[in-house]
Each structure stands twice: as structure tokens, then as C-alpha cells.
């Protein structure tokens, strides 16, 4: 606590006290004002005593965070901060008691030394770690009968990413993160322990005990605008820690929504012991597009231009003396007007003449008889580096009756990697704690944020990715950009928009969001307390997409442009009332809680749209030409719950936990509305229970748990309704496609897990092993029905999905040296198998995603979740070879086939972290084995002729004989041109060559940091500098993805629809950052 911060405090207090009408003003004081006031009081009252500062360390000299320091015989007590530092007011001669969970309590007598270093000895168990569990209850990790895993603030902020979900990747055993892509604001999908159901497999996000919304853009295989996932609104700078509750057991108290695990987030509070602190974090990150599709640069636009076809022409016309240049101009490619006026100038495709071979042809960008050359960087020329700056400042203050923190973050990305895209977010976070009496404490947390993007680009089968696949390799992007800058929407082909122009068809996003809670805890007796908590998360969002009047299509149809504007309001309210008890009877300690929850969800949306505008480019509804499109949707849901938990421990080595919860959901039929679910967990500390003391085995715990969790559905599923639209002003009612259920029951997930925690070799090695088995039955799903029944689906309870798996967390302190080099290795590894055991009746498949281009993902009984389903090659039964017709081209079939599952075999991560004095270096390697996907890029790599696969092995010079057999089984001997094979129509009826393997090993994070020694700088509490990189390299990937230059990780959107589909991914970026953190 330095000199400057005290001045700041004084200034605050002056400002407040000097106001003449202070009493009148007090009525209007905001929460923030109260917080400052309380802090000021505290500061003023305590200023007379001496101040002792210091650090609490463990045996190894590492700081113990949040140790409690109490002046014996007084009410003065503080907590150390995360770095073990504290500051307390006391007088010399008084006794100071220092305690921390997992350590022996220690008492010292204060002397003249004002700067203390206090060491605590570890308590016997060496497992004092506390974690936040369901409902925000802090518990000692050793007592838990199920797996949880924690990430601290550093893990989330040191190598910051725009989306907090991405920073989890590789760090939590069994959590699979799939990024929706590198376009600005795109969503990411996280799944813990695999997919338990056919939709909505993502965990629940809970902030300070109150659930928040993580609506995720569920893009299908075709893509669309990725509006992001709303958990990405969370500002990592405000997060103290994140706990991942993986299984149903850990999460049973959260009820239905916790089936897929819970991510519990604890926001930062005023660091106790620090009277007034100011922290400043600033980072700048450059996202550099890094992984490019493998375009060929040997042949350019047109048809019939490859050397082999020219040779074939000469052979068919023996007298011909046509040169390659003349042939090319006459038959393959010559640009006149881009509308078919020349030779193959209306269809951008790359089966034209050889590039860089001295040919001269008429071209768009260079004019008549100009050199026919490749432009290898024409795709890269479209992109730029994205720069994001994040500036965060927080102020925290602390008195003995009140403390608070205020934080502001500005995150700004003025330009994404694609032109005219951007995003910015301002976040205010505040929290306060009041302890008006010893028995009562009031805690409030509030986050308010404003997010804005002028333009979020479309992912998938619209935009520059697909355009360049279909663009000539001789195409000059810089010339295109010049044309755009000079003349607007001018392009090589009339009817096709200038690529730069259509990035001004903006998709604008605005979101205003507030979430937080207030809770009051009252200590009724020393073993019983009551807590009431009210929390809310709400946001208003506007999405507006426009199409300019100048697009080729609008010019053609003489339209003034289009727009769609959607306004969304989402709100969730939660009210909890919880009684907590904790009592010891001899060797048995019992603690637990009983409580109730009231939850209310509201969702409203309304959409206005115009398919034509009277005044061009005035995007307002009154300007509509024709009939405006308008729709609205309101939804409301409520659940009431009662729950209880009891934990008993015997002599601190045997732990038993029981929970029970009953929900009443408004979405279910009255007779099935109420459902109960229990969980049981058991932990046994072997080392303590059996009195094992050994330097080899320091700690061993066995744990087992069983849980059942129920689940409900969305509102309004119980009755069939008609949806409305209009035609020529007449209402048109469409009967619902899904047959409503007759007797819907809650869905149910049963799971058990067993596991162990071991600490070996003087705690140098720790190992956490978990095996789990989770079965979801009676899923509430709309099973697809044959349309011939009159319905496309029927809502019912169906299906059984079973997830089994193993998770391993291994931590090794390879080098441990108080003053020298420290080296920690953390490994996590998880293997999950999600099987679809049954579906419904005779149903042979359930569509998880309608996919793209006829390829889709299905649930098939007896198969793993997410089977890719598409059209294969016709193969010879005997040899297994591809069968070709008598022209040497593969036969096609309309009988689709199973191509394997989209889910990976296993996932894992290895983090190495080194520390030497004030330097630290860590690198995280993240990996995934297996998991198939359908690549639309690969699918188009053949017909477009744009990729290296179509020029490999000199096929364009010599033609090719497809490795296949004829229909009679004899080997194929028909030589065909590359364009006959790769450019043939058969490719559209074949998905097999586009099924790729998603395995990868990635260098996910590298962080190099330096903590400046601030001991001698009185006004500075900390100063850290770091440089970091994310997604720096794909160390290994399958050759199937490598040949196209694809990042095997990227999915589409953040929902289940996009899993297993890659659709012209925007190049993934390598991110480089620099960060400064300072505390005053």
C-alpha cells in the first residue's frame, strides 16, 4: 500500500464529505458510491494504528493465497491476497494468528519489524486446496467424491483470447473446445465428457452462484453469420477463478441444466488486506492469418486448357499447326466481357491454360494479349492482420466492515482479418461486501457491458472463402481492390459482386447486457446460517443485416436493397434461499444445506425485414417496397426447486455426501411436471485412514459417486400450433411439422464415476484419475419421421446415449529449486466414447445436423454419436477398388453410407512451465486424435481445379488413369484429362473424398513473462510483463487435412449443427500478444 494510493483515498473522502447536501445526496447514492464511502470510513478509522505488511509462504517459499490473519483478542482480521501478501493494522506486542486451509495455524507476536515473512507448515493431509462447488459453496477439495478442476485468473488472462471459451482449450481434462473460426466475434463450442444428447451438449455457465446465458449460434453445415456465443461476453480480467464441474454428480445440485457439466466462475473481489489497490492490465494482440488453403499456381482460368487436352487436340487434328498460345486463346480462355462474350470468360474455374509459360491472352486486369501469369498471393491479398487492444483498470478498497472493487475494461478490435469487420466491448464490473454486523454480510456483484460490431462476416458457403475457390488463379486481387476503391461494385464478371464491395453488406450487432446478484448471509448460530440470493442476467440485442442496392442481383432486379433487423431480449432471474449448517459431533462432522430456487426465463424477439426498398439504401421499415416481413416470438419458462445436501466426514478421512433436488418445470405436462433426483458421493483418504506415512506415497484418496439428473424441455412443446406468414396480404397458416407429445416425461441422466487422487515422491507428482459412465435416457427430442406420415417429426422421449470415459490429470514438479530453475509439467488426457444405444421404435437414424451438400450427421443405434453420412465411391466388391464407367470416370450411387464418427478418440494437453527467479516461460501443447469431418473445401477442391490436388503428379500435362477397375472387374486403362476426372459431374454425388481426419497436435500457447521486482518501489505492488502467442503452430496433422492446408480443428458456429463440417474456413490466425499488468 503505497503513498499514492492513500492520496487517492483521501481525495475520494474529501470529495464526498465536502458535498454540502450530503444527506440528501445519500439517498441517491449508487452501490458504487456506498462502496467508496465504506472504504473511506474504514481507511479513516484505522489510520492511527501501525501497519504491518508481509507475505505468507509455504515450506517451499511459495505464497499461500488467502491466508487469514487475525489479531488475537480483537476483531481485526484480514486475508492475504492471491500472492500471499497482506497488510494489517495492529500494535507491537499484540499476537497475530495466521491460518490457512491445509496448513497448521501459526501465531506470532508482533514486534518492531513491520515487514514480515510468515511461513506456515503444511497440515498432514497436504490437500488443503479449496474449490468452489455447486451453488457457489466453497469446500475443501479433499472431501469431494467427484472430479472437479480449477483454472485461475492467470490461466485465463495470460494468453488472452477474444473468446474466454478458447482459453480453456487443452487445460481441462475431458473438455473439448472447438472454435467456430477466425472471423471476428465467432463462437466456440465446449463439450465436457462428450455428447450426452442429440442437441445442446454444452455446460452451464454460472457466475458467482447465478447462472448466465450462453446462447450459441447454431450454424449448420452451410454456415451463416456467426453472432458468437454469449459466454464470450465474460471479461477474463474480472475472473478470479474458474471451476469445472464435470459430471452429473458434481453438478447434481444445479439440476437439469447441469447434465453437461458446469463452469463455475468466481469474479474478483477486493483483495483482502489491501486497503486500496489500483490494478492496470493492458494487452495488445495481433491475429495474423496463418493457415492458407493449398491453391495451385500452375493453371489458370478456363476450360480445356491443360497441356494434355492440347496434346489430345493435336492428335485428333493431325494437320493442325495451332500453337499452344493460339489454341489456348481459341478454345480454352480469352476474356472479353465476363459474360460469355469471350472464351470461357463467364465461369470462373481453373481448367484453363498453363500459367507462367509465356502465353499471352486477353485478360480483365491486364488487357489484350497480356502475359498469362499466376498470382500466388491473390487470396492472401484479401486479408490483413487483426489488432485487438484490451485495457483494464480496477480499483479495490477494503475496510473492516466493507470492501469493494470496481473494474473497467475496454476491448477494441478496429479491424478484423476481413475488410470492414470490427468489434468492441466495454465492460464495467463491480462488487462489494458489507459486514454491518458480525452476523450479517451482504455481497453484491454486477457486470454491465456494451458490445458493438459494425459488421460480422458470414462464415461458410458465402464470402471470400468459397469465392476464391471458384476464382481464377490468375486473378488479380489488388486490381479488384483498386476497382472497388475507384468505381465501387465493379467485378470481372457482370452479375458477380466485387468481393470488397459485399463486405459492406453489414451484419451489425449491438448487445447491452447486465448480470449479477446480491446476496445476504445471516449467521443464525455458529453452526447455522441463512442465505438469500437474487440474481439476474439480461440483455438486449439488435442484429441488423443489410444488402446494398448496388449488388449485382439488386441492380438486375432493380431493387433498392434489403434488410432484416432482429431485436432480442433475454432475461433469466434466479432467487435462492439456502440454509447452511456445519456441526461437529465428536469424530463426525456434518455440514450441508437446504434450500429452494425460483427461476424464471423470458425470451422475446421481433424481426422486421424488407425484401425491397423504395429509396435505395435507406434501411428502415417505413421505406419498404412491397410487403414488410415482420414476426415476433415470446417465450416464458419457470422452474421451482427445492434441494438439500448433507456431507458427513469421519475423522477427516472418510467423507460422505448426499444431495437431493426436486424440480417443477412449467414446460412439462402437469402429471410429469415434478421430478426428483439424488446423488451420493464417497471419499476415502487412504493415507490418513490407514495411517500411511511414506515419502513415496504422500496422499491417496479414493472417490466414488452416483447421480441422477432430470431435465425438461423448451416452452410450448406440448400443443401443436400453426405458424403464420402471409401471401399478398392474406394470412397463411402452416400446420406445425412436429407432432406434439402425448405424455412427455422429464429426460434423465444417470451417471457414476470412480476416481483417485495420488501424491507421490514428496508431493512431487500428483495424479488424478477418473472413470465415468453416464447414460441419458428418455431424451426429449423431436425424432424425424418420414414426411409421408404427415409430419416431419414427433416430439417424444426417446433414445439412450451412453458416455464412458477416462480422464487423467498428471502434474509433475520436475525441477524444484527455491532460488533456481523450477519446471512443472501438467498433462491432461481424456478418452470418451459416446454410444447411441437405442433410438425409438424402428427408427434407424436421428438427424443431429442436416449438414451440407447431402452429407449430414446422424445418430444411429449401436454407433457412436455423430455419424457422418454421405455418398461413397462405387467400389468393386472383390478388390475394393473404385469402379469407373467405360469413359474412365467413377460411377456414382445414390446409396449413402456411414463414414465414421465426428467425435474424437481422445483429447489431451501438455503444459510445461518453467520459472527462474522472476522469469517464467510456459508452453501448452493441445492435441486431438481422430474425429472425422466433411470438408466442403475438399469437396470443391476437385471441380474448381484451384487446389494442388488437381495438379499433382503432372496430371495436367500427361492426363491420368484413375486407380480403379472397370465394371467387368478388369483394371481401368482409360486415360482421361485431369479436368475430366476432377472437373466431372460425378464429384457432386460423392462425399467420400472429402471426409477428412480431424487429428492434430497444436502449439496452443506460449507465454514468456517477467515479474519486475517491486519490493523496493514503495508505490508499486506488482509489475508483470509478458509476451505470448496462441495457435502458433500445427505440429502435426493428418495428411488428409494437410493436403488442403486446412486447420483440422475449426468447426462452424458453436452449436451441434456445425459439428463435423468445415465449409471454406477463413484462415485461422496465429495470435501474438504483449501484456503489461501493474498493481499500485
Amino acid at each position, binding site marked *: 500500500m503505497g503513498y499514492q494510493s492513500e492520496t487517492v483515498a483521501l481525495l475520494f473522502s474529501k470529495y464526498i464529505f465536502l458535498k454540502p447536501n450530503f444527506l440528501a445526496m445519500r439517498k441517491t447514492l449508487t452501490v458504487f458510491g456506498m462502496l467508496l464511502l465504506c472504504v473511506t470510513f474504514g481507511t479513516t478509522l484505522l489510520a492511527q494504528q501501525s501497519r504491518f505488511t508481509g507475505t505468507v509462504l509455504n515450506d517451499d517459499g511459495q505464497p499461500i493465497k488467502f491466508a487469514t490473519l487475525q489479531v488475537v483478542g480483537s476483531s481485526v482480521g484480514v486475508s492475504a491476497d492471491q500472492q500471499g501478501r497482506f497488510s494489517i493494522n495492529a500494535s507491537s506486542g499484540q499476537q497475530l494468528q495466521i491460518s490457512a486451509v491445509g496448513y497448521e495455524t501459526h501465531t506470532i507476536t508482533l514486534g518492531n519489524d513491520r515487514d514480515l515473512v510468515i511461513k506456515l507448515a503444511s497440515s498432514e493431509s497436504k490437500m488443503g486446496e479449496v474449490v468452489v462447488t455447486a451453488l457457489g459453496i466453497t469446500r475443501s477439495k479433499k472431501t469431494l467424491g467427484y472430479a472437479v478442476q480449477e483454472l485461475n485468473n492467470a490461466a485465463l488472462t495470460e494468453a488472452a483470447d477474444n473468446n474466454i471459451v478458447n482459453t480453456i482449450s487443452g487445460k481441462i481434462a475431458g473438455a473439448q473446445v472447438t472454435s467456430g473460426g477466425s472471423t471476428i466475434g465467432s463462437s466456440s463450442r465446449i463439450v465436457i465428457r462428450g455428447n450426452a444428447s442429440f442437441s445442446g451438449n454444452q455446460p452451464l455457465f454460472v457466475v458467482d452462484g447465478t447462472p448466465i446465458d450462453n446462447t450459441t449460434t447454431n450454424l449448420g453445415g452451410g454456415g451463416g453469420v456467426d453472432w458468437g456465443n454469449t459466454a464470450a461476453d465474460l471479461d477474463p480480467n474480472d475472473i478470479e477463478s474458474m471451476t469445472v464441474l464435470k459430471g452429473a454428480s458434481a453438478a447434481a445440485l444445479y439440476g437439469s441444466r447441469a447434465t453437461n457439466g458446469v463452469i463455475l466462475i468466481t469474479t474478483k473481489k477486493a483483495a483482502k488486506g489491501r486497503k486500496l489497490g489500483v490494478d492496470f492490465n493492458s494487452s495488445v494482440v495481433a491475429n495474423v492469418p496463418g493457415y492458407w488453403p493449398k491453391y495451385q499456381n500452375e493453371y489458370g482460368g478456363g476450360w480445356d486448357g491443360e497441356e494434355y487436352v492440347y496434346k489430345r487436340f493435336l492428335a485428333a487434328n493431325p494437320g493442325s499447326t495451332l500453337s499452344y498460345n493460339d489454341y489456348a486463346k481459341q478454345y480454352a480462355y480469352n476474356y472479353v466481357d465476363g*459474360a460469355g462474350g469471350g472464351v470461357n470468360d*463467364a465461369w470462373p474455374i481453373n481448367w484453363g491454360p498453363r500459367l507462367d509459360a509465356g502465353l499471352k491472352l486477353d485478360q480483365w486486369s491486364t488487357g489484350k494479349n497480356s502475359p498469362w501469369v499466376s498470382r500466388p498471393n491473390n487470396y492472401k491479398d484479401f486479408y490483413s492482420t487483426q489488432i485487438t487492444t484490451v485495457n483494464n483498470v480496477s480499483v479495490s478498497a477494503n475496510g473492516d466492515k466493507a470492501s469493494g472493487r470496481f473494474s473497467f475494461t475496454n476491448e477494441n478490435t478496429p479491424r478484423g482479418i476481413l475488410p470492414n469487420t470490427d468489434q468492441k466491448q466495454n465492460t464495467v464490473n463491480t462488487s462489494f461486501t458489507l459486514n454491518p454486523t458480525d452476523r450479517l454480510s451482504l455481497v453484491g456483484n454486477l457486470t454491465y457491458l456494451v458490445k458493438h460490431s459494425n459488421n460480422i462476416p458470414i462464415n461458410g458457403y458465402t464470402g471470400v472463402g468459397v469465392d476464391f475457390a471458384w476464382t481464377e488463379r490468375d486473378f488479380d486481387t489488388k486490381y479488384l481492390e483498386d476497382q472497388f476503391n475507384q468505381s465501387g461494385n465493379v467485378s470481372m464478371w*457482370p452479375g458477380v459482386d466485387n468481393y470488397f464491395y459485399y463486405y459492406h453488406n453489414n451484419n451489425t450487432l449491438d448487445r447491452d447486457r447486465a448480470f449479477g446478484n446480491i446476496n445476504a448471509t445471516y449467521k443464525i*448460530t455458529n453452526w*447455522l446460517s*441463512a442465505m438469500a440470493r437474487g440474481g439476474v442476467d439480461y440483455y438486449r440485442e439488435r442484429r441488423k443485416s443489410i444488402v446494398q442496392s448496388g449488388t449485382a442481383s439488386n441492380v438486375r432486379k*432493380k431493387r433498392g436493397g434489403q434488410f432484416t433487423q432482429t431485436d432480442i431480449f433475454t432475461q433469466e432471474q434466479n432467487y435462492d*434461499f439456502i*440454509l447452511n449448517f456445519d456441526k461437529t459431533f465428536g469424530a463426525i462432522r456434518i455440514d450441508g444445506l437446504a434450500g*429452494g*430456487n*425460483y427461476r424464471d426465463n423470458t425470451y422475446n424477439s421481433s424481426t422486421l425485414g424488407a*425484401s425491397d426498398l423504395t429509396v435505395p439504401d435507406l434501411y428502415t421499415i417505413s421505406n419498404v417496397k*412491397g*410487403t414488410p416481413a415482420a414476426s*415476433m416470438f415470446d417465450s416464458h419458462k*419457470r422452474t*421451482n426447486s427445492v434441494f438439500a445436501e448433507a456431507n458427513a466426514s469421519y475423522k477427516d478421512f472418510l467423507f460422505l455426501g448426499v444431495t437431493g433436488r426436486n424440480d*417443477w418445470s*412449467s*414446460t412439462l405436462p*402437469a402429471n410429469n411436471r*415434478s421430478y426428483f433426483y439424488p446423488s451420493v458421493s464417497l471419499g476415502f483418504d487412504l493415507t490418513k485412514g490407514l495411517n500411511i506415512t511414506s515419502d513415496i506415497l504422500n496422499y491417496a484418496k479414493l472417490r466414488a459417486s452416483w447421480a441422477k439428473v432430470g431435465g425438461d424441455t423448451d416452452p*410450448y412443446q*406440448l*400443443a*401443436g*400450433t*400453426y*405458424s*403464420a406468414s402471409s*401471401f*399478398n396480404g*392474406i394470412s*397463411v*397458416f*402452416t*400446420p406445425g411439422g412436429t*407432432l406434439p407429445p402425448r405424455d412427455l416425461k422429464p429426460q434423465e441422466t444417470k451417471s457414476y464415476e470412480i476416481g483417485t487422487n495420488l501424491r507421490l515422491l514428496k508431493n512431487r507428482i500428483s495424479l488424478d484419475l477418473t472413470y465415468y459412465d453416464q447414460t441419458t435416457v428418455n431424451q426429449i427430442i423431436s425424432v424425424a419421421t*418420414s*414426411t*409421408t*406420415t*404427415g409430419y*416431419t417429426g*414427433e416430439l417424444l422421449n426417446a433414445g439412450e446415449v451412453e458416455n464412458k470415459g477416462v480422464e487423467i490429470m498428471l502434474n509433475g514438479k520436475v525441477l524444484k529449486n527455491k532460488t533456481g530453475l523450477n519446471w512443472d509439467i501438467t498433462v491432461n488426457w481424456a478418452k470418451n466414447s459416446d454410444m447411441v444405444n437405442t433410438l425409438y*421404435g424402428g427408427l*434407424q*437414424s436421428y438427424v443431429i445436423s442436416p449438414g*451440407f*451438400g*447431402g452429407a449430414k450427421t446422424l445418430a444411429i443405434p449401436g454407433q457412436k454419436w455423430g455419424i457422418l453420412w*454421405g455418398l461413397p465411391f462405387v467400389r468393386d466388391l472383390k478388390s475394393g477398388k473404385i469402379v469407373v*464407367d467405360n469413359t474412365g470416370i467413377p460411377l*456414382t450411387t*445414390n446409396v*449413402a453410407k456411414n463414414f465414421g464418427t465426428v467425435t474424437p478418440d481422445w483429447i489431451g494437453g501438455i503444459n510445461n512451465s518453467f520459472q527462474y527467479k522472476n522469469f517464467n516461460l510456459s508452453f501448452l501443447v493441445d492435441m486431438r486424435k481422430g474425429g472425422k469431418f466433411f470438408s466442403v473445401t475438399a469437396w470443391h477442391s476437385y471441380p474448381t481445379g484451384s487446389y494442388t490436388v488437381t495438379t499433382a503428379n503432372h496430371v495436367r500435362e500427361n492426363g491420368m488413369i484413375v486407380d480403379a477397375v472397370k465394371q467387368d472387374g478388369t483394371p481401368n486403362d482409360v486415360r482421361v484429362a485431369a479436368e475430366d476426372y476432377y472437373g*466431372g*459431374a460425378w464429384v457432386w*454425388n460423392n462425399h467420400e473424398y472429402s471426409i477428412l481426419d480431424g487429428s492434430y497436435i497444436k502449439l496452443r500457447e506460449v507465454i514468456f513473462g517477467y515479474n519486475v521486482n517491486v519490493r523496493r518501489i514503495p508505490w508499486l505492488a506488482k509489475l508483470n510483463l509478458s509476451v505470448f502467442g496462441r495457435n502458433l503452430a500445427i505440429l502435426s496433422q493428418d495428411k488428409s487435412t494437410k493436403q488442403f492446408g486446412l486447420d483440422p480443428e475449426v468447426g462452424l458456429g458453436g452449436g451441434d449443427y456445425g459439428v463435423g463440417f468445415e465449409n471454406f474456413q477463413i484462415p485461422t490466425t496465429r495470435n501474438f500478444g504483449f501484456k503489461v499488468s501493474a498493481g499500485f
Partner: protein
Amino acid sequence: MKKITTIKLLVAVTLISALTIGCTKKFDSINTNPNAPTVVPATNVLAKGILSSASTLFGERLDIYYTGSYAGMTAAIGLGDYEYRVDINNSMWRGMYLAMSYLVNASDLAKKENNMNLYAAALTLKAYDAQKTTDMWGDVPYSEAFHLKDSGLLYPHYDSGPTVYKEILAELKQAADIFKSGGTGALGVGDLIYKGDVSKWRKFCNSLRLRVAIRMSSVDQATAKSVIGEVLGDPTSYPVMAVNSDNAYLNFPGVTPDLEYWYIRLGTTGAYTDQYRMNYVLVNALQGNNDPRLPIYARLSNNGGYNGYRFGPNQLSDPNNNGNNVSGIGNRFSQNPAGFSPLMNAAEVSFIKAEAFQRGLASGNAQAAYENGITLSCTENGISAASIATLLSQPEVAWNGGTTSNLQKIYLQKWISLFKQSEEAWSEARRTDVPLMTDVSKNYSASHNRPPFRLAYADEEKTLNPNFPTKVVETDIFWGTQIWWDTRTGVH
């Protein structure tokens, strides 16, 4: 102290209980959908049935591209091939069955409203869709279809083509008799075809009976004859379309977003670049008779002149097929936002009569009916009486003229009059082999001598319906077993 604690505890527990359990009474109203109705007027569902039928049958993919190229009427240049795409195939199958299910829904609502005219109109259009469906795919679920809600039938079994036809004829007869009995009830605003004119639905219904009968006439002549006899023999009870104002056309308002389907895809000004063009077979047939409908059906190519896209092994390298050499589709059919989807027209009815008379399925003046058919078609296309007279005197048009038989002339002129009804034109070409189309698209030209026989079954149907028949033969996707009324021999 202990007592106070107990009291506090009790209060808390009571509070919790009151908060949670007490409040579930409101749940039913919370879960009542405020956005959408559970019961609506039948007429507004009829509108959905009409739009849904038209958008599948007369939309871009099926009408211009797929059946358009099978029928020799239109073609997609560029790759120019018969396209098979799993997802599109699924959506066509789904489109037909959804349209029919909406019509079933409308007829159920009509029954509850005691509106028998609306019931009969919905039944008529459902039968219309059913014939299209079985003509495209062959054996399809019908008698057990649309019964999930009332009978829990999840896996409808497949009916043979003749069985579906039998059902269709029965449904049309039922509708015709309701109309005959002077059924009650107004069709309301949802009648987007005839604006509530029940007498025209009546004619549409009976005309359809003729269409169904003539399609099956070569295989089940007895049934065909009896249906044709019943309809044509009692015009008072069973009136049919006679003039163009009887045509069952869905006319579009032309105000966005309610624009005609071909226009949505093709509407353009200036240079013509769209891949959808005219087919050589139709352009050639029109040119052969100096047919005045040519400039209505087709646009001049970018190079001037009328020319259609030619299928065949060399279609990609044929200079005639160059984008600038191939005609676009005529403005009346593709350039009018307030255009139409032709479900059926009076010209076809006249040609059916001509064929029935010519083949002795009924008695009447074949030549008069034939010439009336041509006149109706030309008039509809804005051709002057003088030009019609000239056309009727062309050697291969004039009755008893030229080298082709009168029956062939009826078939050809009927086929020409079916422009923009590609599925119907394709069915007629499959039934009559007129016009003779031996050139098929490049990839299939080596192994097939006629355009596709059928559409491939929907992939989704194979996985969703265990009753999908195992005996289905699909050769090269589009071929296999001929549709049951397709009696051509030597075709493959």
C-alpha cells in the same frame, strides 16, 4: 436461543415451500404459447397447401432444372448435366408430402367447419399432388400416409402405382360429387387459384380425372374409358375446363416478397448470363412448324437467333451450346414478377379429349378438339388469330397433313402446350415417346437412350421408413424400372 433458532428454521422452510410448490398453479398458463394459434380457419391452411404445392412443382429446381431437362424443355448450361443431389432430392420428396399433409389438414378443418366445398377443393389439390408424386417416383406411400396423428402410423407402407391411381380417382370422384351436389361453404381468402369461384374448382377437379385417366389409358384401358366416359358423357354433372379463364393458375401479386418463382431465379435486365436456358428439343419442335409461340417461349440468344441447348456426349464442347448461343427462357415465363404457376390449363383438356376421341376411348370430333387445344394454348400466349390459322396450316400441324400421324400431332402439340409444366411434359414424353428424345446428358449418353425414367427416392426416406421397399431398382440413379403407365419398349 435454541427455540429462536428453531422458529427461524421453521419460517425459512415454510418460505421455501411457499415459494416453490405453491407457485406451480400458474404453470399451465405460463406454458401456453402466446405466439401461435392452435386452431385456424381452414381457408388459410388451404392457402398454404396451394403455395406449398406450387413452390415445389413450379419452383426453380424441379420445374426448370430437373424435369425441365428430362422433358426436353429447358436445360442448365455450364455443367449441363442431370443433377442428383441428396439434399435437393430429399427436399422435393418432403415438399410434395408436406404440401399434401397441409391439404389433409385443411380438409380436416373444413370438415369441422362443415365447409364441404373447401373440403372438396383441398381433396382435389391433394389428389393433384399425389399424381405428380407417383408419376415422379413410382411406388409411394399413400393409403397409409398422413395417419400419424389419428392412427399412430409411423411407417406407412408403399402402394404400387396403380393402387395410388385408384385412390386418386376415388378422391377426385368424391370431390366431384360433392361439387355436383352443390356443396356448402365458401372457399374464402385462401383460394389463391380461383379467388373463391367454386364452379372453377369443380371444372379443375373433373379435368384432373381426365388427366389421370388418359395417363393410365394404355395400361388399364377399361378404367380409363369408364372415367372419361363418365366425365365427358355428363358435362352438366362433371363440367371440365373449356376456356383459358378456367385454367388452374396461381397468379402472383408481383409485390415483394410474393414474386413468381421463375422470376425470382431468372428476373434480369441487360446481358443474359443465367445458366437456365431453352432446350434444343423444344426450340427445334417450335422452329419446325414455324410456331408463333417460339418468341414467347424463348428469348433471342446473346448472339441473336433462337437456339436450344443440346444434350449428348459432346455437349460441353459443342459450340452451339456456348452461353452466348443458347436462348434464354421467354419473358412471359421468366421475367414477370407477377407471373403465374400453371397447375393445369384448358388446352390440355382439349388435347385429352382429342386423344380420347382419336383412340376411341370416347366419341367426339378429334380434329376439332385438337385444333381447339392449339388455339387455346396460342391464345393464352397472346398469339393472334391470323397467326394461329397459319400455324394450323403448317404441314406437320394440319390434321391429316405431313408425315406424322394425327395421334403423334396431338401428343406433340399437347407437350408444347405444357411449357412451364415440366413434370407433366416429362410424364407425357415418357408415356408417348413424343417428342422422341434419344440424346441424353453427357455422363449418361453411353448407357441410356432416353432421358431419366424417374426421380431417385429420397435418401431420408430410406432411413426413416423401414417399410421402404427393398425391390426398388434404381439404375444410374435416374433409371431402373419404368413407371407403370410407361409402356415404351426398347428404351433404357
